[in-house]
């Protein structure tokens, strides 16, 4: 692993906070996203919360485009990742970019590590497009975690996972984040996952950021009213848990 870590110097460093401005998108007279500015700090873990249609995926997509332009290769997991008709190991290997100077053994080792961590070892020879929804999601996650990156953008990475798989995924992710100190933006509507993994939260409602701050702010009685509405309807939280 140390060999790999020394290679991360090649992946552009993300040391200073970055502010992205003008994150706007309009689709047929409807404002999908309207975020004038957003600042992200390295090493922090942000939970992007919001109802369906609030603009989460649009924001994630835009972040991936802007951050790739600034920092080279980042890890972006779209909401519906594509599963290639190759075996699972090969699918995961797509996450390893060229030019890292890794030997075949090192590559195989990191692929194997992810297979084990996410309990996909038995499926390693199966075709990627023949997996169940949950297995495919784990594979997509493994593809991102196979090499250390400084930025991870995950759009609903755990929506199809059962409790067992969810625990594995969270463990793998936590491991990765602590080892690499990467920035994480996790778009999810699973509040429990957000609370376990993230320390900051961004609440998006109808394309606009209505709340931004530490994750403890979700419990704050003085939180944004729309946020309260969201929490109540999405998670049946009538009062502060």
């Amino acid at each position: 692993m140390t060999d790999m870590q020394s290679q991360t110097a090649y992946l552009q460093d993300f040391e200073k906070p970055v502010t992205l401005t003008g994150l706007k998108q309009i689709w047929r007279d409807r404002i999908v996203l309207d975020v004038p500015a957003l600042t992200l700090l390295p090493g922090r873990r942000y939970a992007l919360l919001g109802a369906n249609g609030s603009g989460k995926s649009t924001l994630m997509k835009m972040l991936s485009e802007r951050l790739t332009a600034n920092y080279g290769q980042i890890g972006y997991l779209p909401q519906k990742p594509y599963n290639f008709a190759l075996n699972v190991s090969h699918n995961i290997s797509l996450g390893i970019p060229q030019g890292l100077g890794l030997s075949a053994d090192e590559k195989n080792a990191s692929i194997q590590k992810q297979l084990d961590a996410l309990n996909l070892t038995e499926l390693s020879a199966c075709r990627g497009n023949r997996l169940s929804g949950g297995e495919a999601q784990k594979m997509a996650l493994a593809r991102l975690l196979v090499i250390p990156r400084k930025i991870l953008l995950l759009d609903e990475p755990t929506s199809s996972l059962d409790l067992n798989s969810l625990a594995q995924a969270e463990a793998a992710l936590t491991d990765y984040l602590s080892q690499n100190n990467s920035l994480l933006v996790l778009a999810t509507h699973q509040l429990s996952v957000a609370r376990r993994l993230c320390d900051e939260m961004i609440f998006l409602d109808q394309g606009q950021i209505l709340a931004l701050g530490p994750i403890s702010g979700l419990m704050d009685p003085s939180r944004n009213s729309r946020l309260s509405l969201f929490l109540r309807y999405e998670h049946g939280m009538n009062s502060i848990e």
Partner: protein
Amino acid sequence: MTTFESVFAAFASGDGELYKILGLTVCMTLLSTGFSVLTGFPAGAVLASLSFPGKKLLRRIIQTCMGLPPVVAGLFVFLLLSRRGPMGSLQLLFSLPAMVIAQFILIFPIVTSLTLAAIESRQKAINQTISTLGLPRYKKYLLLLWECRGSLLTVVLTGFGRSLSEVGAVMMVGGNIQGKTRVMTTAIMLETSKGNFGAAIALGLVLLILAFLVNVIANHFQEAQND
């Protein structure tokens, strides 16, 4: 080979002339389809992935070329390779390479256009997943082509069928020379002009059987993939 029966007798006995015609047909078809696929697949993949000014216009042009009249392509190649033409010194007129060139001009736009259509449907989803991961360009194109391999097989078959059935351009630039450029379609034309309609029909049937066999083999591969 003047009657219906004599054609099949020639087929069974391994008659030199008929097998020469068949051999030339297969050669020409494989070469022209092969070249078209080798250039058309990457062209279609690149066109599907890149966006540049004038992309729409280029697409329209290629799609129009799909319907290029074969005699026009034949005439163009003929004038190009004619003794008085710009490439006359190569003495390629009335040869197999000339036929392959004319067919390539006809089939390349078809393959490119259909590949473009096949890939476009999946291109967005695939790109979203791997665009940030740092894969080299050529690998991305290979992945695109691999993922669409089902449709692409149909594209190959389309190109192949087009090549097999071409007669006008092939007659013009090939010359229907016995033993050198006589292929199944031009042989059928010859027998028809001689009045040997029975033989012409028999040759036509052989051609159909050939096309059918190719389709059977291709479908076998497709089914194997789907398992």
